[in-house]
């Protein structure tokens, strides 16, 4: 059974179902009452008419009796006179007991459901001067509730009206709930608090207030943790600087090279953490800058460091940018491509409908589609088990930069299966 998934759908269904049941129920009750009243009246009327006919034709000559009885027929009750009763003597069927009591003990009654409609109840009452007044009627069948076309149409119209009204009303009622869900969805992508208005039904109002309080607590918690992380990273730089100087006094050799490499790795982690925390908080103004020059510098720096990276794009791409933040973000993308992917790394930039798209493609194994969202989250390492190191912040820094700049960062695969990071930035300042 496939229930409607939304609360609005279920409430609507409940409303329609309930109202339809109520409607049908009242219809049945109404019919019953109507039928009961009408049926009672019929039996009395039938009995009175049959008995009156029997009395009226008592003194008539036999040849006129049948036509006289016939003229006394009513709609639904047909009367005749006959010399013999068409119904054998015997106790009447249970359904007709009430009628039999009205007609007197001499009356005979029978019910044949297979007979032609209008002749299913057949009975006879003796005439004092001889013969029988014979009647036939259809009243038992008429008691059944039948829905004709008009009734169905009115039911359908009513159901449609109810459905429409309940959809509108329920949407209105559940709007605060949807707003709550949207706000909850926004949390995590952006840690700033987005208080939602506390209105709507009281349950939703309570939920909204609780949600706002929770947002505030989460915000404070994240803020505290971030501050602590920043403080630790910040303080680590002094001992690292000392360590680096001290390593410089060691005799040249493999040990020293390794120590210096370790120090460089620690420095990279610390500065990446600080970059992540700082992104979006610094006061760097947005000014026209040449994106192509930044990408060229990054490719050159990587090449000078012994890696294979090329910039393949126009010589100049000027757009409003926070240049240093952009360089930080892009350098993290390149760094990520070189550490977690594989060289050669290809940097390119092109225009796409009012946005400038920077692509950083590597020749590694890429990231499975299911893991891509996780790869963009801070402090997540997809290949930690493979010992590639890193702080798990490179892509997160770039994603944060994209968001703060009114752009997006998406991960995709290159035709050869490597990772393709696409940074889309607005042509105009956000």
């Amino acid at each position, binding site marked *: 059974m496939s229930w409607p998934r939304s609360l609005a759908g279920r409430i609507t269904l409940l409303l329609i179902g309930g109202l339809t049941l109520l409607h049908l129920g009242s219809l049945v009750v109404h019919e019953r009452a109507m039928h009961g009243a009408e049926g009672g009246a019929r039996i009395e009327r039938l009995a009175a008419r049959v008995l009156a006919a029997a009395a009226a034709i008592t003194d008539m000559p036999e040849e006129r009796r049948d036509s006289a009885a016939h003229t006394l027929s009513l709609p639904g009750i047909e009367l005749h006179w006959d010399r013999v009763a068409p119904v054998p003597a015997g106790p009447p069927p249970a359904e007709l007991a009430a009628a039999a009591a009205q007609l007197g003990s001499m009356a005979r009654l029978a019910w044949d459901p297979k007979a032609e409609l209008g002749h299913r109840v057949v009975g006879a009452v003796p005439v004092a001067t001889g013969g029988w007044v014979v009647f036939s009627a259809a009243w038992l069948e008429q008691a059944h509730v039948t829905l004709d076309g008009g009734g169905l149409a009115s039911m359908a119209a009513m159901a449609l009206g109810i459905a429409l009204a309940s959809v509108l009303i329920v949407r209105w009622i559940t709007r605060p709930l949807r707003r709550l869900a949207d706000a909850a969805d926004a949390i995590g992508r952006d840690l700033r608090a987005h208080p939602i208005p506390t209105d709507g039904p009281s349950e939703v109002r309570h939920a909204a207030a609780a949600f706002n309080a929770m947002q505030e607590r989460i915000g404070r918690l994240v803020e505290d943790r971030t501050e602590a992380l920043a403080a630790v990273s910040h303080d680590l*730089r002094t001992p690292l*600087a000392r360590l680096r*100087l001290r390593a410089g006094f060691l005799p040249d050799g493999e040990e020293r090279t390794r120590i210096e490499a370790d120090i460089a790795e620690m420095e990279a982690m610390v500065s990446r953490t600080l970059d992540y925390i700082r992104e979006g908080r610094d006061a760097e103004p947005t000014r026209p800058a040449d994106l192509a020059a*930044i990408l*060229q510098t990054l490719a050159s720096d990587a090449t000078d460091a012994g890696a294979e990276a090329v910039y393949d794009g126009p010589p100049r791409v000027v757009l409003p940018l926070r240049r240093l933040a952009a360089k930080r973000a892009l350098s993290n993308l390149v760094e990520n491509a070189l550490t977690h992917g594989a060289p050669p790394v290809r940097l390119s930039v092109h225009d796409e409908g009012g946005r400038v798209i920077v692509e950083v493609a590597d020749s590694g194994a890429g990231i499975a589609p299911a893991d891509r969202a996780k790869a963009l989250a801070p402090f997540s390492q997809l290949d930690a088990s493979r010992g590639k190191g890193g702080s798990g912040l490179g892509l997160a820094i770039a994603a944060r930069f994209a968001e703060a700049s009114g752009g997006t960062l998406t991960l995709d695969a290159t035709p050869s299966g490597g990772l393709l990071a696409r940074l889309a930035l607005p042509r105009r300042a956000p």
Partner: protein
Amino acid sequence: MSDGAERRLLDPESHILLVEDDGEMRNLVARLLREAGFRVSAARDGREMWEAMESPAGKPDLVLLDVMLPGVSGLDLLRRLRERSRMPVIMLTARGEEMDRVLGLELGADDYVAKPFAPRELVARVRALLRRAGPEAAVDPLSRRIAFAGWILDTARRELASPDGASVDLSGAEYDLLLAFLEHPGRVLSREQLLEVAKRRVSVDPSDRTVDVQISRLRRKIEPEEDSPPLIKTVRGAGYVFVAAVSRP
């Protein structure tokens, strides 16, 4: 360091004043600079810095100033120092603290080194600044914008702006090379001279080829289009020359 011993023979000992509050750090940097052939005085804060300035050991040739100091900050000390002297100053800043860096350079610091730094890098920066700030090359710290062919190099912010005002990113080596050209416009700079400049930044296999590569990268940025006016020209067999007019507005 054999390199240091060599320098000692070439130059009279330069005197460096190191202002740094962290004791260990102070000792290590002092040791590094001494081994590189410099005479080093150390101060732990502003008060000791002013004392060292007046001491019989003589005025320093260069001040290495930490931004993060207890009490009066390094930036305040720099401002006060600049009120009375054009003494060369290198700021020691925390890596990534862009505002410290920009503020320091705008307040008149001649260079900055981000902590944690590679020992070699610090020594190279100190030497480069001492060379630049020789007696004949006192540059007014307030007019450190250099203009050429519509471009402006802001040496305080280490920022290059194109004729249409866009900020153009330069790598460290490209910046150093451009600055060398701008300080010697119209003069042919040999590959060896340029290599000396580029060496400060490029650690991997510095060779003649490195200079050509760095120069071609620089040209791609300041002569981006086919029809951009040529600013740097190759002089066959001799080196490179910067051909545009250079002014200091």
